[in-house]
């Protein structure tokens, strides 16, 4: 035995270093199946706890707000920021709702680790940027920055229950704001950088993905809405949109709450490997697209 490297080469030669192809595929399938099963099981069991928890939370919040005023809102877990409060809020009610079902989705450039989730610095920053840009264009909007992740943790609910939690919140906002016409659930993708990035005129932009669900009662309207957004984006900023993705995995699949409003869409802006600067660049263009769509009517 000459040196350590030779020894390790010998060890490597001793064992078959790749598993069977069949095994690799079937295991992946098995894991996917188990993941979906896990989701279904936990959703049914916990759905009642969420709704009662949310109700309680709402009641508590309402009483706090009425007693101490709005200053509490920013720190509270269930908080809705009305960005147009001073200029247009009194004249017009919000047309656009921005929210984040996976509020903890963050970016490698922020977390500096493989685990790209963060409680504070996350996708809600991107939503905030969109809200501000729309406000500049005099489009009244609301961004909901509820910390869905913390609500899940507090209730002991699993990750897949995020949509049940955000549903309650969105429902609530819709009831209070009858003028809302469009809902954007802003996410980021988990795909790698080369898929989620595009270079336009020497600058990197995060690419956009519009997602709708086949299970939504408003599926046709949702899809039409998403396609319009995609088309306007494609005309004005070619290459920025990855297109419209229709999730269709059978009857048990989530509607992603897109059934709550005809003009609703889930938008992935970039992925975990994009920088915040790239995210913002794209967000500004998305605001232009939304403006164009509203004006085209």
């Amino acid at each position: 035995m000459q040196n350590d490297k030779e020894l390790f080469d010998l060890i490597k030669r001793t064992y078959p270093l790749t598993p069977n192809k069949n095994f690799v595929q079937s295991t992946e399938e098995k894991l996917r199946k188990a993941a979906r099963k896990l989701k279904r099981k936990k959703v049914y069991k916990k759905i009642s706890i969420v709704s009662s928890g949310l109700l309680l939370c709402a009641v508590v919040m309402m009483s706090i707000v009425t007693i101490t005023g709005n200053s509490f809102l920013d720190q509270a877990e269930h908080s809705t920021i009305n960005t147009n409060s001073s200029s247009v809020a009194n004249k017009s009610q919000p047309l656009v709702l921005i929210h984040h079902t996976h509020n903890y989705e963050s970016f490698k450039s922020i977390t500096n680790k493989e685990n790209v989730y963060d409680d504070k610095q996350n996708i809600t920053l991107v939503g905030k940027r969109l809200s501000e840009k729309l406000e500049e264009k005099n489009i009244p909007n609301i961004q909901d920055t509820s910390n869905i992740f913390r609500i899940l943790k507090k209730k002991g609910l699993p990750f897949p229950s995020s949509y049940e939690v955000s549903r309650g919140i969105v429902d609530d906002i819709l009831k209070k704001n009858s003028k809302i016409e469009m809902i954007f659930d802003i996410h980021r993708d988990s795909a790698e950088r080369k898929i989620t990035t595009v270079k336009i005129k020497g600058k990197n932009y995060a690419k956009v993905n519009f997602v709708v669900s086949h299970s939504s009662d408003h599926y046709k309207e949702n899809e039409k809405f998403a396609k319009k957004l995609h088309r306007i984006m494609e005309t004005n900023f070619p290459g920025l949109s990855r297109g419209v993705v229709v999730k269709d995995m059978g009857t048990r699949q989530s509607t992603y709450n897109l059934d709550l409003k005809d003009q609703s869409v889930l938008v992935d802006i970039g992925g975990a490997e994009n920088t915040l600067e790239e995210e913002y660049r794209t967000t500004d263009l998305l605001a232009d697209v939304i403006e164009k769509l509203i004006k085209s009517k």
Partner: protein
Amino acid sequence: MEHLDDRISEIYRQYYLDVYRFLICFSGNQSEAEDMTQEVFIRVLNNYSNLHKVNHLKTWIFSIAKHVSIDHYRKKRLVGLFTAGFFTQFFSADKEPSEVMEQYETRKLVHAAISKLKPHYRAVVILRGINEFSIKETAEILQCNESKVKVSYHRALKDLKKKLNFEMEEVIQNAK
């Protein structure tokens, strides 16, 4: 947008090969290593809700792999480590018989030497030598301090070489 099934298959694709390589060297049996690999990712899935607490996904997955392999070793020790089918399972037909025989002998020796290492040493050697983890990462996986990793690694290598030389001498002796 992330979904649990997309996320788990993404994690699986990224790490299955490394995990399998650790487990094949640890157990020396392909189908067992495959079973254990599957077990590792099922445990990852079931503990998914704790993932936000994890700083390094890779070392976390490997610490699960270590637990799976040690559980397996405990069960296995009762049965005995050698399985008759092990060396015959990857003979290739396109080689000369003498070549096959030589390969067979060396593999048998290496396998015998590795399987005689105590589990902690075996894990350190494989993690450092085959998976090429740093000392810090290995310490994180094995939940011990870095100096213990260094010491174990050197002792394990020395031990392994001694066992290999001993086995080889024995073969030479027998051949005389």
